[in-house]
């Protein structure tokens, strides 16, 4: 029904093909795919290396000079592909690949949560009456004006330590960062609901819920997918930031932010240890951001002119 009015839908079946057709999109897809594969295959990869993320290697550390690795370059060897962690001797490669699971899990879960809340609030505001819109929009503005970091820190400190941390991180990130999605959804809904096909559906007596689902939602795919793809790296950085501050997952569970946090005291003596998680995070965030950007170009050809 909406084929004639929404050019986006034509692109929909060929989104992957369109992405693949662009060199930037192809690289982003491959890197993101690799990262997800690494996270899934973490046990296999560490078994291949012959290490696990929690075994200490006291013998490889120089206790007299502060507990750094004995060997140069952070203790990189054939047994420890990316070296060992100072003061514990745990394998950096193993911690890195297991850390990817936490990063992806939290970033994915938080993004999904943000998407759901954002869609619900945005649609309700966009399709509801004047009062509902005013109320929900002011509420969105309110959430948007929260100091995210301070609020996350406060919430993470209040909730009992026994509550599973990855789930808590997802809930907090989703609960605090959904407002931008809601605003985009509301604005797009405002445009779409004035279209003829929506008026036609209304004349046929379709309920608001049906209009939202069948008429508006398909038109929202392009802007929402683009924005969501860009939220993934943002959430990833937020998780790393909170873990860096010691509010993320509890030890001995590995996470990138935690690795960066311990590395700060070591960057002058053992720069390898800070470079590995930092570069990994950089590559991941770049890949997800590039993917988001490529998706935007693929679904919104008009944007190319910009």
């Amino acid at each position, binding site marked *: 029904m909406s084929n004639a009015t929404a050019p986006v839908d034509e692109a929909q079946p060929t989104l992957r093909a369109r992405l693949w057709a662009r060199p930037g999109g192809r690289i982003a897809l491959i890197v993101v795919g690799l990262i997800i594969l690494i996270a899934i295959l973490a046990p296999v990869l560490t078994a291949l290396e012959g290490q696990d993320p929690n*075994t200490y290697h*006291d013998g490889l550390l120089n206790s007299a000079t502060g507990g750094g690795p004995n060997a140069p370059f952070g203790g990189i060897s054939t047994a420890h592909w990316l070296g060992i962690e100072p003061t*514990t001797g745990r394998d950096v490669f193993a911690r890195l690949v297991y850390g990817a699971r936490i990063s992806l899990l939290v970033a994915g879960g938080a993004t999904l949560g943000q998407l759901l809340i954002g869609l619900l609030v945005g649609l309700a505001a966009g399709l509801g009456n004047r009062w509902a819109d005013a109320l929900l929009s002011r509420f969105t503005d309110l959430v948007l004006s929260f100091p995210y970091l301070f609020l996350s820190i406060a919430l993470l400190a209040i909730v009992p330590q026994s509550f599973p941390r990855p789930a808590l991180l997802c809930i907090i990130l989703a609960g605090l960062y959904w407002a931008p999605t809601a605003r985009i959804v509301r604005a797009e809904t405002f445009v779409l609901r004035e279209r003829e096909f929506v008026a036609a559906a209304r004349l046929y007596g379709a309920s608001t819920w049906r209009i939202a689902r069948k008429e508006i939602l398909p038109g929202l795919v392009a802007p929402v997918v683009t924005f969501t793809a860009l939220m993934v790296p943002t959430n990833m950085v937020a998780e790393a930031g909170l873990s860096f501050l*010691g509010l993320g997952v509890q030890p001995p569970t590995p996470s990138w932010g935690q690795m960066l946090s311990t590395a*700060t005291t070591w960057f002058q003596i053992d720069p390898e240890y800070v470079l590995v998680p930092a570069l990994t995070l950089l590559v991941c965030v770049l890949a997800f951001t590039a993917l988001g950007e490529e998706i935007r170009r693929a679904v919104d050809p008009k944007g190319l002119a910009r």
Partner: protein
Amino acid sequence: MEIPVPRRRIKLAALTSALLLVGGLAAACGGSSSSSSSSAAFDAATCQGGTLDVLDQTTENTGLDPAVLYTSGGGAIPRLLFRTLTTRDSVAGANGRTVVPDLATDTGEPSANATVWTYHLKSGLKYADGQAITSADIKYGVERSFSSVLAGGPPYLRDWLVGGATYQGPYGSNPDLASIETPNATTIVFHLRKSEGDFPFLAAETQFAPVPKASDTGKNYNADPVSSGPYTIQTFTKGKELLLTRNTYWSKSTDSERLACPDKIDISLGLSQTVIDQRLASSIGQDANAITTDTDVDTATLAKSASQPALKSRLTSGNFPDTTYLAFDTKTAPFDNQLVREAFSYAVDRTALINAQGGSQLATPLTTYTPPSIGAAYHAYDYFPAGATGNAAKAKQLLAQAGYANGLTVTLAYDNNGQSYVGPANASALQQALAKAGITLKLDPIDDSNWDAVVTNTKTEPALSLFSWGADWPSGAPFLTPIFDGRDIVQGGGNFNLAQYDDPAVEKQIDQINQITDFTKAQQAWGDLDAQLGKLALTVPLYTTNDVVLHGSNVKNTYVDQWRGWYDISSVSVK
């Protein structure tokens, strides 16, 4: 009863790492110029002059009221302002743990069973305003510490003095504490309700500093206390800066423990560990005359010093007697079974724990409850030899004997503060070591702000926790009594007998040792008691920390006093 505050690896996350970068650049620029200023050797006769800078993390937000301060041996900065009946000996090495007379002519004359202690004051003692110091002022100083508005000092006076349990301080309707007598202006007598051979050590704390009644301003006294020491406060901005100048009425002829070399002491408060370490390491400009009274070097500076002899020469190390240990509640299964406790003793990997603390320069493995730095009360023993990295086979065998052939799952409580001695790094290290012996350790992080309240409350005490204990003075008594005396099991909060160990025979032994007034003999007896209790595996001693500190390149006569493990700044010179 002092738990050592976490002093190491203080990092305020992002902010600090930015400062670290800035500091690192500064260090790189100034590295060459710092080592050139070593001039003449130190001479106590000609050391006077100059301004000493002190860079500290403490904020001193609660001020400097001698009744409120909780120090060990009079502290560092308080000792420049307050003279006490006795004090610690200002020398480097093991003798720094000895108690010596300060305002008094000797360390105290005890009665036969050490329940009555008599002190005579030296002559010619004066405050910074020129008034004479009398024994009544010392009595008044002690009495003030009982007032509820001036709470904060150590708990011993209330416990030891006759009538101390009910006395409410000098401000109420019943201002006089009869168990302290002042028969004349230079004599003071303390009547205790039980034998306490360690009384001279307590008399070194700031509660025994004289306070002139006419100048007492109650709660406001902490901003401008009347000085009896070599310096007096010129300006004091809490949280920022404390500037000390000479007390012209102080005379070296009555004070053999303070050299008081610098003319001025400028104390910067509330700095971060990284800033202090970087400024001391680079030692540029006025920072060459700087020192710290509360900040250890960070791991990075320590590792850098391995390749930089000029930096290494400015590092000094010392000890505050402390023990970090694994605490069992021996009233709770499975820790009521001694075989299980022994299995834990065999299974621990002390090397991993030392590395988690920053390596062997910062911590030393310990198999005894009292650390060697306590002096004669240390008796070496290792009843359950775990070796450097743990004996998992022996631990498994003991567990099988105890009926846990298929292993054991228990929960370990730790402080979730990453900077704590009893924090996550140690918990992870224990977890991986015990796993080898078939013990699955579930980790229970307790929020830092609740930690003391949860662990020291008998109702909420975890069955297994990491804990740390430091002595108020270098003697076996404050080290063993609160931990193993069954009468010290406090219901509700503030209990440190985490084992909940209660043996009347041991209590009788403790009373007997407290009657010994010969210090060396008493320490031997404390050491024997520790060696006897060690056989029961009531705790698993893990390690004792070492303090490694840095000073500016122009500061002389720097040593770490072995009573507290920090610089003795009453002896340093910048001339």
